């Protein structure tokens, strides 16, 4: 039962263009959403998050959009850089801090110079 779905296993984008990574979820109790970035042989690192009371959160080149009615969120990276090449995990949880994070399977982003 996949509560968090990242339907694109991979994505290739040219340097300088926009990368859009998508994520869908099924559990309406999810209230907090996060994106993690993972390089090979390293653990995931927190990138950006958004709570359900917002529909957009921006941090530098990274913006996360949340469409709660569609149970959909997306991560935009503008402009994309070769160093952004990594696996991006979408994750979600309820508001309570001791609710475990549920992760998607990840999308491998390749930014081509």
């Amino acid at each position, binding site marked *: 039962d996949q509560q968090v779905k990242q339907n694109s296993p991979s994505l290739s984008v040219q340097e300088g263009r926009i990368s859009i990574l998508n994520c869908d979820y099924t559990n309406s109790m999810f209230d*907090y959403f*996060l994106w*993690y970035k993972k390089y090979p*042989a*390293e*653990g*995931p*690192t*927190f990138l950006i*998050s958004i709570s359900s009371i917002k529909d957009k959160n921006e941090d530098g080149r990274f913006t996360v959009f949340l469409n709660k009615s569609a149970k959909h969120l997306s991560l935009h990276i503008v402009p994309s850089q070769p160093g952004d090449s990594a696996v991006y*995990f979408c*994750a979600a*949880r309820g508001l*309570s*801090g*001791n*609710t*475990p*994070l549920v*992760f998607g*399977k*990840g999308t491998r982003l390749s930014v081509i110079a």
Partner: protein
Amino acid sequence: DTAVSQTPKYLVTQMGNDKSIKCEQNLGHDTMYWYKQDSKKFLKIMFSYNNKELIINETVPNRFSPKSPDKAHLNLHINSLELGDSAVYFCASSQDLSQGMRKAFFGQGTRLTVV
């Protein structure tokens, strides 16, 4: 300085053996976690500990036993290893439960291969 460190990085062992993976964090965090990334690439929570107390145990077999001697350490012991235990195991920590996994820091992972 590594914030969350796991040892060993790679572990190859035979079925039926007992093994441990160690995790230490030097961030002063109260909450630590173990996650498992299986062959299908899903990252799933196994356990979380807050101030050495077990908070979450996500239907993990009894063969898996976390041990937290202090707030900075959460070790994972696995008895009678099975082929299906082969995975990458990630340790993580966050400041406290109120932050949950908002700003969790992950270790580099331990790739366990059971043969």
